[in-house]
């Protein structure tokens, strides 16, 4: 898989293009992680609780994710109450996994640099 880090491509070695701005935000990363571990979807209230967000923040971040087609929001009537639920899309799933791979690459690069620094210092 292409990580986007450009590990072997010389000049752009540390570009990390795969660190998607839409995902690379604490609240949205938290929302996507919750949805990845609940593939059947989560209700608005559960998502709010799991991610520690207010109604306004949750709406705002979900809108960003929905616009990027990373999540699907649906409304349904349950026990005579309108329930909003949210599910990750196939694209969202793929982009999230790519993001994790790039994040892993960043940490591995940092670890390698730290090790190198240790060797030159010591």
């Amino acid at each position, binding site marked *: *898989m292409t990580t986007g880090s450009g590990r072997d491509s010389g000049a752009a070695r540390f570009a990390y293009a795969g660190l998607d701005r839409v995902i690379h935000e604490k609240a949205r990363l938290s929302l996507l*992680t919750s949805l*990845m*571990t*609940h*593939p059947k979807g989560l209700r608005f209230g559960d998502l709010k609780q799991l991610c520690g967000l207010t109604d306004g923040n949750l709406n705002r971040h979900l809108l960003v994710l929905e616009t990027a087609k990373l999540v699907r929001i649906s409304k349904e009537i349950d026990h005579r109450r309108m329930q909003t639920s949210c599910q990750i899309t196939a694209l969202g799933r793929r982009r999230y*996994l*790519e993001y*994790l*791979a790039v*994040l*892993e690459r960043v*940490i*591995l690069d*940092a*670890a390698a640099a*730290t*090790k190198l620094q*240790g060797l030159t210092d010591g």
Partner: protein
Amino acid sequence: MLELQKALAEINEIRGAIARVNDFRGYGPLSVAVSGLLALGVALAQANWPTFLAPDPTTYFFVWIGVAAVAAMMTSLETFNRTRRVHADLAVPMLQRALEQFAPALFAGVLLAGALAYFAPQALWLLPGLWQILFSLGVFASCPFLPRQMSIVGLWYLGAGLVSIAACSGGAVCSPWAMGVPFGVGQLLVAAILRYGFRQKA
């Protein structure tokens, strides 16, 4: 450095958590179907040439252990390649979880065959039925992450195992069909469910 290692471990933990709750789509219908046809073909051959392929319980079981080894190799290869393709970055934790679900039943089947052959060869007639029952337990364990119709396969193997025990009781050599029909039909059923079941689940 420790913090970086902790961060890497956390990423792996996230991958593991995702793998634990998502459907496993690594099993390929092609190799499973071929293993079913192989079982039916070998049963037909054993029924036609019993003096050559099933003259005694030992030969009978060696033939079926060979069939199981070939089927296991085919399905493992397809599962490995398919999982890498379908699950990409999640391939390792997904394969690990699939193994955790199914491998204990297979492992128990191998040990059971060895124990019966070594300590109680007179009870070898029980083996087809016991293998099918163990296989059903492996299928049931894998059910939550496969199409929901897969539980029918579990029931098929469980029922077939009990019928095999009833049908083979007292006989010196089991009928080739006691292995061929349960595994042949069962694997073809698995292949059909893998091919069409996920579409319904999606």
